[in-house]
């Protein structure tokens, strides 16, 4: 449902007669590209039409039509709405050309689509599973796949009411029975997948470190950081090829926390997904709510009343402060300043979480947004606390954090010039949020494609130009300050009273058939929700564009040539949350 500028429209259709058609389905937008001309179409898009940023790649399984569709969302980094294009292939043997050559940022997302949908990407250099484990049978996001403990195609499950025969799922199944994998799976659990991975990482490239001058004999070796490593922010693994202490190649391995959030989302009704989005990036649940609410509201064609919108922006910006505080604190943790800076940052977060708790009912799992508004109004006392916080305390505390860390010589020597990502590569690799802006690309969804009330507020898009770890630290401080500017405006402009919900709250919303992509500038980058409805109470497709997952695409590149100890700092500067990376 994203609007497209007319100029592009004309030129795209003129340029590719017959092979590029407008998507004529009711409620859909964008173009359907013939599979054969995908590569040339993408090239034209990037080189001539200026759509240099491929944000979101995902699959949709149209089981009734026997089609598998790949949906692409591309943007111009100069701003403006998305250009959506799709490729449809038969469901039996879906093969699509890989766009990694043209948009390297498609790398992980295409691997994910292969993993979850079984769509093959021809020409992808590294088409391995990414979230599921090697040896997993089937592709779980396909509509005909049934998970373990399967009950029904969609919630609400029939056996809960009116004849609720209570049971625990775990009791119902014998161990191993309801989990589908080949019988010889246990025997076949080999290190094959890892070996393949290691082999692709250039271990054997030069047994003597390329040295011919008779210097110190070195050998390339593979080092696994993780999965359970104190500096990987969760269960996350980095496989690094080292030559001495220098990283030659680095590959992130994830999926240890995978729970197939999207499959759960497609079983759920629309409203049920709201609390599940909290669990994506559990540091920023309000932003997650925001993105999902926007997507479904686009489909439903409703807008929240003004006061609700102000409350939404308020919560989203508070979340940004929280998340950036957290990111700075834990970056310092990763640099070896164990927990003192982190706790100073978390202290401020604590007050904000108390506000969330008083308003939404929970500190982290807020579940606060509803379609067409928010769940409840701000309770008494919260606006006053917010004023104290935003006008008095937080600005001082951010300055203190600045004084505390920015000039610290150790921080500077560990961070400046480390993990550099050039602007060109940042765009190519679809980096988002602070990573992109620290590399000199002033792209912020709040400004580039404004949603909610962001057009009303006066704020700067923070940008830094060196693209190293230090700039990624600084940009978070900048953004906290900008967020506080927005917060001050929100508190001054917010109507004192008013509706907080458009229409009557209902437990099962009617969502017309169609597709929608709602995106917000989450603290970690562009957080998008792609929702396809077929008119039933459950979404047909529910996809999350997870910023921390896609930002990891550039991790390997940032780490190459750095020392192994810096890999941890670079990872800390990306600020990942595994709940979102693994979903």
């Amino acid at each position, binding site marked *: 449902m994203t609007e497209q500028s007319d100029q592009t429209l004309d030129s795209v259709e003129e340029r590719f007669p017959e092979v590029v058609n407008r998507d004529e389905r009711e409620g859909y937008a964008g173009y359907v590209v013939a599979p054969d001309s995908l590569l040339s179409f993408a090239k034209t898009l990037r080189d001539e039409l200026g759509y240099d940023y491929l944000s979101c790649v995902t699959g949709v399984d149209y089981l009734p039509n026997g089609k598998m569709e790949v949906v692409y969302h591309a943007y111009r980094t100069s701003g403006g709405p998305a250009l959506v294009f799709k490729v449809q292939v038969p469901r039996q043997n879906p093969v699509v050309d890989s766009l990694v050559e043209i948009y390297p940022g498609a790398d992980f997302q295409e691997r994910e689509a292969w993993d979850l949908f079984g769509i093959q990407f021809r020409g992808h250099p590294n088409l391995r599973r990414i979230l599921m484990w090697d040896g997993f049978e089937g592709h779980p996001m396909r509509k005909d796949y049934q998970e373990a403990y399967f*009950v029904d195609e969609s*919630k*609400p*499950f029939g*056996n*809960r*009411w*009116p*004849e*609720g*025969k*209570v049971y*625990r799922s775990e009791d119902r199944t014998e161990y191993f029975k309801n989990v589908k994998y080949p019988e010889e799976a246990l025997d076949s659990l080999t290190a094959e997948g890892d070996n393949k991975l290691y082999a692709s990482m250039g271990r054997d490239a030069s047994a003597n470190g390329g040295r011919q001058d008779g210097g110190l004999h070195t050998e390339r070796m593979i080092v696994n950081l993780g999965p359970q490593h104190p500096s990987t922010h969760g269960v996350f693994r980095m496989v690094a090829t080292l030559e001495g202490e220098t990283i030659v190649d680095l590959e992130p391995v994830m999926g240890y926390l995978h729970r197939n959030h999207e499959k759960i989302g497609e079983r*759920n*009704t629309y*409203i*049920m*997904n*709201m*609390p*599940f989005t909290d669990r994506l990036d559990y540091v920023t649940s309000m932003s997650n709510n925001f993105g999902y609410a926007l997507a479904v509201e686009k489909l439903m064609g409703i807008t929240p009343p003004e006061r609700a919108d102000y409350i939404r922006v308020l919560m989203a910006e508070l979340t940004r402060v929280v998340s950036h505080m957290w990111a700075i604190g834990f970056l310092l943790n990763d640099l070896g300043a164990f927990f*003192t800076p982190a706790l*100073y940052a978390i*202290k401020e977060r*604590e*007050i904000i979480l*108390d506000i969330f*708790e*008083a*308003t*939404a*009912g*929970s500190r982290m*799992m807020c*579940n606060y947004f509803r379609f067409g508004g928010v*769940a*409840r109004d701000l*309770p008494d006392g919260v606006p006053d*606390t917010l004023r*104290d*916080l935003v006008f*008095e*305390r937080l600005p001082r505390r951010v300055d*203190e954090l600045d*004084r*505390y*860390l*920015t*000039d*610290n*010589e*150790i*921080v*500077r020597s560990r961070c400046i010039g480390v993990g550099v990502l050039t602007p060109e590569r940042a765009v190519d690799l679809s980096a988002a949020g602070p990573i992109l802006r620290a590399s000199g690309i002033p792209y912020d969804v709040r400004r580039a494609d404004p949603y909610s009330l962001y057009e009303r507020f006066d704020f700067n898009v923070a940008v830094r130009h060196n693209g190293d770890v230090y700039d990624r630290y600084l940009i978070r401080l900048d953004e906290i300050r900008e967020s506080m500017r927005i917060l001050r405006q929100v508190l001054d402009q917010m109507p004192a009273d008013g509706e907080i919900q458009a229409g009557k*709250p*209902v*437990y*099962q919303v009617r969502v017309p058939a169609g597709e929608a992509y709602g995106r917000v500038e989450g603290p970690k980058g562009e957080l998008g929700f792609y929702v396809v409805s077929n008119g039933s109470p459950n979404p047909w497709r529910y996809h999350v564009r997870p910023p921390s997952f896609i930002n990891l695409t550039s991790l390997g590149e940032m780490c190459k040539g750095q020392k192994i100890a810096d890999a941890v700092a670079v990872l800390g500067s990306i600020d990942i949350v595994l709940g979102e990376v693994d979903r």
Partner: protein
Amino acid sequence: MYGIGIVKGLGVTLWHFVETYIDDLRWLGRRYYNDEALAVRQGPEGRGVFTVQYPEEKLPIPEEFRFLPFLVYEQDEDGTAHDRCTSCGICAKVCPPQCIWIVRSDDPDTGRPVPEPAEFYIDTDICMNCGLCAEFCPFDAIKMDHDFELSSYDRFEGHIYNKAKLSRPVDYYASIRPTNYTREEINRAEKEFKKSRRGR
């Protein structure tokens, strides 16, 4: 000069260290185990360490805090309890992890459904404390509790709560959520009033 930044930073650390002691003096030694001090300490005026001396001290629980649902029942003057729940099943239908099981009760004589649940189960291992059941219950019969200290030695059996374990009197509800309770009672009274007017 090299090292100035570090010294400046250590100054901040030192100030954080000293600040708690200054705050301690300000409260004349009553900084801890004192509800009044706790409220200030944890708010935007708070200075020094934020640590709460749990379990001797507990953070005040805001009204909207939600942790596990309970069922509200009303009591007659003679003490008989009436469930507010009519077993309409909306909570079971809106529950995201589907942790609510309800059995409707039938009148033994006529065999027709009676608006009271025969059985009501919540699997607290699965409940995600989202509060949607309480939000969408049209009879204000299921509400979110404040009691979060539920640790037990039992891993499975006691975690599926039955109707007896879930039920709480309406007074309890009024005590933990006074604002919500008052608002709902006013709404209810208005509705009754309108109904009685229409009836006349």
